[in-house]
């Protein structure tokens, strides 16, 4: 049985989607299926027939967020970053820190301690803060 994650990485060579835990806990394999963030390690490949799948490679319109990750130190080793960004695009623009924490509850980072990630999201959402 191939998971969506396996097909993306091995057959499509789209290695931006990472495998962490392989059981839906870490969020490194997050992709969008029909616009909704899901764990691609929990999706049998055949199930996405007829659906639209967006990986980090195909994400558009999130350039400000991606730049903020670079500028604010939101990425360190980078394994969790694609999943973080795909989970973050579902958040409302006016998300406060509590919304951000809740929205990223399914994405684990073991480098930055999350502060850089939260800073990146808030900087991307609030242009005035990004200029600080």
């Amino acid at each position, binding site marked *: 049985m191939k998971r969506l994650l396996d097909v993306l990485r091995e057959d499509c060579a789209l290695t931006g989607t990472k495998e962490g835990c392989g059981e839906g806990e870490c969020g490194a394999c997050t992709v969008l299926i029909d616009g909704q963030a*899901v764990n691609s390690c929990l999706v049998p490949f055949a199930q996405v027939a007829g659906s639209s799948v967006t990986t980090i490679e195909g994400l558009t319109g999130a350039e400000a967020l991606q730049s903020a990750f670079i500028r604010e130190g939101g990425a360190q080793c980078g394994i969790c970053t694609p999943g973080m960004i795909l989970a973050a695009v579902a958040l409302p623009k006016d998300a406060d820190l509590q919304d951000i924490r809740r929205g990223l509850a399914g994405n684990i980072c073991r480098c930055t301690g999350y502060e850089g990630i939260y800073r990146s999201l808030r900087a991307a959402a609030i242009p005035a803060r990004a200029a600080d």
Partner: protein
Amino acid sequence: MKTFTLLPVRSLLEGGRESAKPGSILKAGGVDLLDRMKEGLETPDRVVSIAHVPGHDGIEVGPPARIGALATLARLDSHAELRRVYPALADAAGGAATPQIRNMATLGGNLAQRPRCWYFRQAEFDCTKKGGAQCFALNGENRFHAIFDTDVCCCIHPSATAVALLAYAARVDTVGTRGKRSISIEDFFVAPREDPTRENQLAAGEVIEAVVLPAPAPGSRSVYKKLKEKESFDWPLVETAVSVSVSRGTIQDARVVLGSVSPVPRRARGAEKILAGARPSAELIARAAEAAVAGATPLSQNAHKVRLARVMVERALREILA
């Protein structure tokens, strides 16, 4: 993992019929099932997927409310009208797992998922839940296990929405090869003493179609509370859902439910009796909370859960009777 055929079906009835055939298993969101297949606990030849059956993901708040079994936990969480009328259900759904999993996991699947006991989840342990002779958690690692009804299998039921649905006296509507039926949520679950190898009374070929919640009584309030080790994305240590209706300063009716304390979600009837007909007071709430945990039989590592459960009931009652 063993190779299988994924069979998407066009109706729940077809799903029931196909999944009743030998070597077949039903899948909705598939979150729990895929995990069990990876552990080798399930080795189906065919996975019958109802994930894309149309027309069963609706949320009609009514009241009475009718929620299709394929509605995702994310939709229950974000549905403003549902949250207004049945806040405990919205909070139970929104507090479960992660955003990614809530986008996939369905209400029906949440009710029908299997327990997360670490002995049950490992194929090497032939425990009572797998039809074996002993419950390894009884004398093993049991700090997250049950504190009530621990004699046969001391796992805890993993469904948060079930705890809220019990507080709302919901019914589970099913469809299957033997026709349709509507089961009280209380009768839906099967305790280990009756049959440790199952958690609910769904028959072969029977599929959850919807959950129906009666209209809340006038003046009623409800709340769901969950205590966990981590601030986010964690299973509950204990959880509670409480629904009370108050008229002219007197509690008319109360339903107090405890989750993560027993193999099936548990109504704290002792607490309910103390509350019904009484006038709210701090002393009453303390007595009801004490009664909610009376008769607990904690295991070697989880006596603290008795106190946690009492405190959670007390907090929930304080919040809605304030």
